């Protein structure tokens, strides 16, 4: 079911983290601490790679190493083969002009119009007025804000501000886009539209996107690959679909439990027992992907089990572009019914997990 994951080779990678550690010295009230501990990670060229973790897990530090806003304490960060840590200030500025970045709080200049904000990186790069004009217009079209070019950020919604942030990040035609919690300040609907835009940019411009987030929804919606970070270490790594359907690490499971459809209703969760006694019902999670997600499995299940089957929770979704379903059902836990159910699951290639038993 899962395709074995192999890290993109250094040649195929837009960004390589090679045994990277970052320690912060003690200052003031906060003691010294290790933000990143020996991180190895290759970000595939042209991919949308997500790094997910709770706040304080080290993901902000990790993304800032890529454009040299932070320097590693040890190890190397390579961007298109260039060792970021070895660059001097001028070299760093050149690198940064080829790496776009978007932020949680947009970081737009309130004193500049929409046009002026998108033009800023080009002015910084020393481009002349006419060339800037020619570059900015199509970018505003791309993000759907051409009619707002003379407005100021304060006059726009959060989603529109992030679109400007994206247009600004793309102005210097980078090959890599860093997204620092870019949708965390937005409502779910706006988040979806920003993520759609990132997907489109990735597909149309062939841009590699490295995004950090604490929201599994974001990872699920756009990324092809994901790394889970916890306490400065990468604890799980793989194709997004596999990590979602077969989470291995505890942190991943905890992050996934927040997703709608993956939680049992409270009333059921409270009554759940680890072992069955007479007359109990088994609570089973069925996971199906790809072709099985589209077959009329529920009616077949009821027919072959030949007993009452309750649906307790369920969700049908798409992860990394693949259809995915999860269904929690309950049926009599006696040996005969269970045997029939298990046969049915095996015949249909369903992944099952017995969650427990209820009276």
């Amino acid at each position, binding site marked *: 079911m899962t395709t074995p994951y192999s890290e993109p080779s250094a040649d195929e990678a837009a960004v390589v983290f090679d045994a990277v550690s970052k320690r912060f010295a003690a200052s003031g009230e906060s003691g010294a601490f290790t933000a990143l501990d020996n991180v190895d990670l290759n970000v595939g060229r042209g991919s949308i790679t997500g790094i997910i973790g709770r706040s304080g897990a080290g993901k902000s530090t990790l993304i800032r190493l890529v454009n040299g806003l932070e320097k590693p304490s040890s190890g190397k960060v390579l961007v298109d083969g260039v060792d970021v840590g070895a660059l001097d200030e001028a070299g760093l500025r050149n690198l940064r002009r080829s790496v776009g970045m978007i932020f949680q709080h947009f*970081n737009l200049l309130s004193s500049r119009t929409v046009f002026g904000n998108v033009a800023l990186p080009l002015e910084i790069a020393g481009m002349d007025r006419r060339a800037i004009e020619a570059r900015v217009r199509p970018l505003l079209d791309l993000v759907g804000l051409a009619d707002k070019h003379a407005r100021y950020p304060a006059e726009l919604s959060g989603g529109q501000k992030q679109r400007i942030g994206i247009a600004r990040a793309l102005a210097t035609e980078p090959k890599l886009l860093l997204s620092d919690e870019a949708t965390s300040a937005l409502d779910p609907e706006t988040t979806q539209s920003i993520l759609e835009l990132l997907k489109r940019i990735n597909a149309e411009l062939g841009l590699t996107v490295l995004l950090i987030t604490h929201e599994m929804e974001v990872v699920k919606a756009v990324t092809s690959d994901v790394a889970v970070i916890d306490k400065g270490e990468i604890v799980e790594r793989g194709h997004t679909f596999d990590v979602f359907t077969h989470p291995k690490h505890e942190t991943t499971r905890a992050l996934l439990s927040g997703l709608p459809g993956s939680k049992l209703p409270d009333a059921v969760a409270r009554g759940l027992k680890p072992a069955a006694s007479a007359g109990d019902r088994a609570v089973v999670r069925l996971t199906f992907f790809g072709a099985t997600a589209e077959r009329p499995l529920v009616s077949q299940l009821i027919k072959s089990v030949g007993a009452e089957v309750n649906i307790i929770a369920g969700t049908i979704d798409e992860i990394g572009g693949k259809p995915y379903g999860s269904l929690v059902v309950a049926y009599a836990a006696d040996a005969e019914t269970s045997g029939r159910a298990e046969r049915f699951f095996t015949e249909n290639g369903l992944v099952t997990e017995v969650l427990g038993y209820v009276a």
Partner: protein
Amino acid sequence: MSPDLLLLIAKATFDTLRMVAIAGLIGSLIGLPIGIFLATSGKGELFPAPNFNRLVGLIVNATRSTPFIILVVAIIPLTRLVTGTSIGTKAAIVPLTIATIPFFARLVEAAIRDIDKGLIEAARAMGATPTQIVFKVLLAEARPALTLALTMTVVSLIGYSAMVGAVGGGGLGDLGIRYGYQRFRPDVMLIVVIVLIVLVQLVQSAGDRLARRFDKRSRKN
């Protein structure tokens, strides 16, 4: 009131305006870069020079904590050196300028420190040089606050300029002391006070209006 007296008041108003304008212009031109330096030269900032930063901060504090009237007397040698005299409107411009520099510098520092650090990070991520960050981000974003800082500076200068009247500085303060106080003319004193109030009001409302025009942070449609 005699026409002579009205002429005196007009002349004193003009003197005050001249002192405030020249001291304000020179003082803020020197204070602005000092304020920028104070706001950007701390440890880990754009132009890190923590020791020099502390030294400049110390000098600024020392100047600011010296009572103005003492500053006027204390720098008489400097005033003589620059203007050739220690009495009159021209001489008063020197201490006024000296007092303006640290006052405005601290206000500039506060205005710049108030800017969201995220904007500096965004500019660094674009590959901006520290100088570009100062001109394209910090000064541009701080423009409303800098306008208010300048307004506040000019208003205090009007007050200070009345004080130099006490040491023969000329202007409205001088007129108030010599005619209003020493010659027992409460009517002259009243007019001097009213003219000062009107001046301050005009400067304040002009400054407020300009700052509002520069400020694009609030939704306006």
